[in-house]
């Protein structure tokens, strides 16, 4: 401090400088207040203020660019998997549903729907994964799932060309719960159409007969009880994205 030049000033000059500085300071506080007020008066964009929705999209551009579908989610030994798997949502899981007559509706094109039975899916090679299932609420659980790898599924039914679409949409049979997922994440090799948990048939409240397990996404995307699957180049409707959450919600 000794090296810096100090100024002599009259009391009046000191007072003037202090007052001017504080006027600037109060203007700054006022601007911060106005900026926040502005933010909370912007129109709603599916459950959040529009600039914050824009924030989600910009973040996806930035971090989506770092997404590499060959980066694998960390896996664990079977012994690490919990036997008390949390059940955290029942939207779309209404009572009037019979898993025995269930068939997946796979919309290849408008008016061209393929019906796929559980037997056909179970005939495909089984893939198992033990990973840290992460809920958007903040908790996570190491859990064990089994099913058919999504890329195997596409290849078996000759649907590889559909992977050129940007998004996949999934709906429960009653269409009460629905998710949209970017194709890159769907094609990540750990994504499975799941029919087993802890080596046993998938429990009813975990989405029997078939659910999605997509380890690069938060739990909200792991739709239980798949009814319909379709392909699209525009973002499919997404239950939680309509309620203020990030459409991508990925890791």
């Amino acid at each position, binding site marked *: *401090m*000794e090296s*810096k*030049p*100090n*100024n*002599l*000033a*009259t*009391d009046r000059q*000191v007072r003037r*400088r*202090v007052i001017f*500085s*504080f006027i600037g*300071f109060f203007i*700054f506080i006022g601007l*911060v207040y106005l900026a*926040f007020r502005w933010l909370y008066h912007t129109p709603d964009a599916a*459950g*959040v*203020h529009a*600039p*914050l*929705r824009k*924030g*989600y999209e910009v*973040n996806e551009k930035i*971090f989506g660019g*770092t*997404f*590499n579908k060959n*980066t694998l*989610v*960390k896996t664990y030994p079977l012994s690490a998997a919990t036997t008390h798997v949390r059940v955290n949502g029942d939207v779309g899981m209404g009572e009037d549903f019979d898993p025995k007559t269930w068939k997946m509706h796979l919309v290849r094109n408008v008016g061209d729907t393929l019906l796929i039975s559980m037997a056909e899916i179970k005939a495909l090679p089984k893939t198992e994964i033990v990973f*840290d299932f*992460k*809920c*958007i*609420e*903040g*908790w*996570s659980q190491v859990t064990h799932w089994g099913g058919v790898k999504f890329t195997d599924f596409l290849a078996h039914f000759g649907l590889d060309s559909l992977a050129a679409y940007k998004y996949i949409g999934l709906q429960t049979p009653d269409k009460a719960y629905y998710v949209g997922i970017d194709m890159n994440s769907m094609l990540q090799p750990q994504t499975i159409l799941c029919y087993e948990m802890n080596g046993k048939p998938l429990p009813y409240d975990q989405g029997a007969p078939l659910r999605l397990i997509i*380890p*690069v996404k938060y739990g909200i995307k792991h739709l239980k009880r798949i009814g319909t699957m379709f392909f699209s180049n525009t973002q499919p409707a997404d239950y*939680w994205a309509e*309620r*203020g*959450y*990030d459409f991508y919600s990925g*890791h």
Partner: protein
Amino acid sequence: MKLIVKKHPLAIRWFHWVNFPILAIMIWSGLLIYWANDIYRVGWGDTTILKFFPDSFYKAFNISGRLAEGMALHFVFMWFFAINGLLYVLYTVISGEWRYLWPERKSFKEAWLVVLHDLHLRKTTPPQVKYNAAQRIAYSAIIIMGFGSLVTGLSIYKPVQFGWLCTLCGGYEWARIEHFTLTIGYTLFFVIHIVQVVLAGWNNFQAMVTGFEVEKLPELEPEPSEETTNTQNS
């Protein structure tokens, strides 16, 4: 006549005051997120000394059920927090201000003497330039904490793409604990900071706005000559 003693460069005041509302929003939105899975407590076994947070806390601040809003805010303002922090570090490095801020070897010993002085257990403080030893440690620690928040935050935000960072933090759950603990650290820092600023008085506080402290000139000798006018300051 008064002496105007320059203290804080404009850039530092700017970074300081810009950081204040940003950090406030980050802590606030962090609470909105934390509410959805509020499992942390201080205690052992079945004994809990402190639960984060009691229901009355959530009720008082209307925090419940605002997870989406919290995430939306957190993931926008994280950029402002990171950019402001990085610019601050760059500025202090390039301008040389870091010399007043970074602890010296003697700082760790001296900091105790400062603490003892502040607790009125000691009459004198070690000599200081701009910041005392305790301040050097506190103000450097808060920057390292900020960096820690970025690293642990990124680990929670993208635990697959930044899996190596997540592993470095000890895994997903540890990263979340660390991220939370750092936030508790900020609030403790804030409380001590405010108390210290209040105790230090107006001249010190207004310097963070104006950039200078105002000092009285020493009484002049009856026959002053220009050479003897000593304008020493500390």
